[in-house]
């Protein structure tokens, strides 16, 4: 059976003539879900989101309703909502489309969420480079305030919530929620240690704070529109709603494909949606969910048991596109940013490219990450420039093993996972790359570092 897209988040923005102004959004049913929400009690809205089974779309896939439950409501301090629109995981470009083409969808989700958690102030932390995107959002906020959907006395309920757009400074680690909070406080984006700094208890200005991804906000709007129980029927048990697959790299039709969770496979994504490999090429590997997720080699097989007890024996192409199935194969759905590599790619160069990224983006707080990311970058780069030796291959793994699990934030894992997953799968090719350079043989045309 061929798989089809099920656009939920992208349903409107793909329609010809759809614009970012509030009238257009309202013509397409906009802000009806908010009206529904403010007619309910905040805790009932939280319950709907919990029932929906919605998982956050920022990469970790944490259940949104459960996150909201952790909120410290007894402290008497103000509660803040912070929307993470600092889209910067390599391979991910889904939130950009929402911000630039359907900002009200996200704002409606923000208004609903703010009501549910009783936040009087929300911030949208947007990538510094999204200069025009920030303006689009500011215009949309002004429109929504004028119509009573945001700002003072929302829809006559007596409840008020202001939304401020805050631009970042081009720093990957500020996508990490506690780094983002530090940055929003006007400091360097150094992530905070947990415990005690769980945002739901000690977040922005040491007040209870919910940090949710931009797409998660858009999903919340649909949870309210459908109702939690109906929304939970989209997708599969344990992973509800749709996932936006951001495919990039070496396929015929890279692009964004919104698919019901678990209702297609990587094979269908790569061949049916993306048109297969470029002419004369074959697929070699995919990085499934943003550059930090572990790489999958075409030809590998994955055997095991899913959380529901079902046994599986899959090739990469057979893996269903839901969080549990992908996690069962030792990697993650992450942000859905699938980077596709084919037989024209020299794997050590691909690894070196990512190592350079993580070395550039480490905040420098924790020694294992600061030193480790730079060493990984240098060692992989020296292989590509002809200065490598065979012992560099296990050395890469050794360094990565000393970073993961030893840092304040998950940047340590992001540094280590590409190396830890790629070295065992491609070590023979790395050794061959070293040998080729020693012998002065021809190198691949495609340069990645």
């Amino acid at each position, binding site marked *: 059976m061929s798989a089809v897209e099920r656009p939920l988040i992208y349903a409107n923005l793909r329609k010809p003539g759809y*614009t*970012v102004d509030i009238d257009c959004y309202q013509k397409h049913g906009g802000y009806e879900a908010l009206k529904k929400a403010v007619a309910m009690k905040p805790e009932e809205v939280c319950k709907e989101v919990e029932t929906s089974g919605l998982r956050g779309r920022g990469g970790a896939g944490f259940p949104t309703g459960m996150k909201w439950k952790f909120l410290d409501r007894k402290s008497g301090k103000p509660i803040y909502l912070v929307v993470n629109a600092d*889209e*910067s*995981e*390599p*391979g*991910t*470009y889904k*939130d*950009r489309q929402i911000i*630039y*083409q359907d900002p009200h969808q996200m704002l409606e989700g923000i208004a609903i969420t703010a009501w549910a958690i009783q936040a009087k*102030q929300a911030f949208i932390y947007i*990538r*510094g*480079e*999204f*200069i*025009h995107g920030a303006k689009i959002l500011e215009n949309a906020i002004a429109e929504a305030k004028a119509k009573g959907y945001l700002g003072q006395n929302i829809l006559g309920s007596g409840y008020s919530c202001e939304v*401020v757009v*805050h*631009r*970042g*400074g*081009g*720093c*990957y680690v500020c996508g990490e929620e506690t780094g983002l909070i530090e*940055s*929003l*406080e*006007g*400091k*360097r*984006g150094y992530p905070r240690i947990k415990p005690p700094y769980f945002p739901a208890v000690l977040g922005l*200005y040491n007040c209870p704070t919910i940090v949710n991804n931009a797409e998660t906000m858009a999903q919340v709007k649909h949870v309210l529109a459908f109702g939690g129980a109906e929304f939970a029927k989209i997708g599969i048990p344990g992973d509800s709603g749709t996932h936006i697959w*951001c*495919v*990039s*790299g*070496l396929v015929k039709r*890279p692009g*964004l494909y919104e698919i019901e969770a678990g209702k297609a496979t990587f094979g269908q994504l790569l061949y049916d949606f993306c048109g297969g490999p470029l002419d004369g090429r074959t697929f070699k590997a995919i*990085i499934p969910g943003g*550059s930090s997720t572990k790489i999958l080699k075409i030809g590998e097989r994955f055997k095991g048991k899913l959380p529901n007890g079902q046994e599986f024996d899959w090739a990469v192409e057979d893996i269903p596109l839901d969080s549990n199935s992908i996690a069962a194969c030792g990697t993650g759905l992450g942000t859905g940013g699938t*980077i*596709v590599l084919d037989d024209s*790619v020299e794997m050590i160069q*691909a690894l070196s*490219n*990512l190592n*350079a*990224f993580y070395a*550039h*983006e480490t*905040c420098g707080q924790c020694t294992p990450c600061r030193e480790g990311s730079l060493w990984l970058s240098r060692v992989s780069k020296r292989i590509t420039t002809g200065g490598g030796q065979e012992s560099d291959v296990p050395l890469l793994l050794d360094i990565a093993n000393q970073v993961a699990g030893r840092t304040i934030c998950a940047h340590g894992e992001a540094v280590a996972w590409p190396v830890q997953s790629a070295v065992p799968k491609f070590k023979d090719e790395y050794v061959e790359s070293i040998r080729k350079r020693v012998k002065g043989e021809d190198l691949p045309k*495609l*340069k*990645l*570092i």
Partner: protein
Amino acid sequence: MHETSPSAPARALTPETLAKAPAIVGLYPQKRSATMPLLHLVQEDRGYITQEDMTWVAELVGVTPMQVLEVVTFYPMYRQSPIGRRHVRVCRTLSCALRGSYALMSELEKSLNCARGETSPDGNFTLGFVECVADCGCGPVVHVDGSMHENVKPEDAAAFTQKLKATLTDPTYGQKTPVPGTPEWNG
């Protein structure tokens, strides 16, 4: 500070910039949160941030100038010295690299007469790599002064350079509102 100061004295910030600042500070429950937006404001006015600017921001948000410097040196977007009239940044990260961004960079170095990381001798272009700018399906992408150019193939470098050069004599450059549906809108 190890950064070299520009040889010419920096011009003063415009009255518009000075007038906008208090409202920005007022948006936040704590003033210090206005540090980054104020730095963006300064940089969008003059193109870079001076020590005097940092002192000004520090006074507005109630911290020491050193605490503002810490922020300036942490975030890749902030600059302490002037750059060329057009800031051309090619995405370096894997998705764009797979689509040829390294080859594109080499071609642009030739056609813009500018090495990566440097400013062209005529002062028109500053060329550099940037890390992933979240437009991975349209690689290679080039970010020029805040607008995105998608699918710029290495073989298109000369034509792309001509396009950029034409903007140097366009008095309305940077002032037009992008048209929805165009790559400029999505920048």
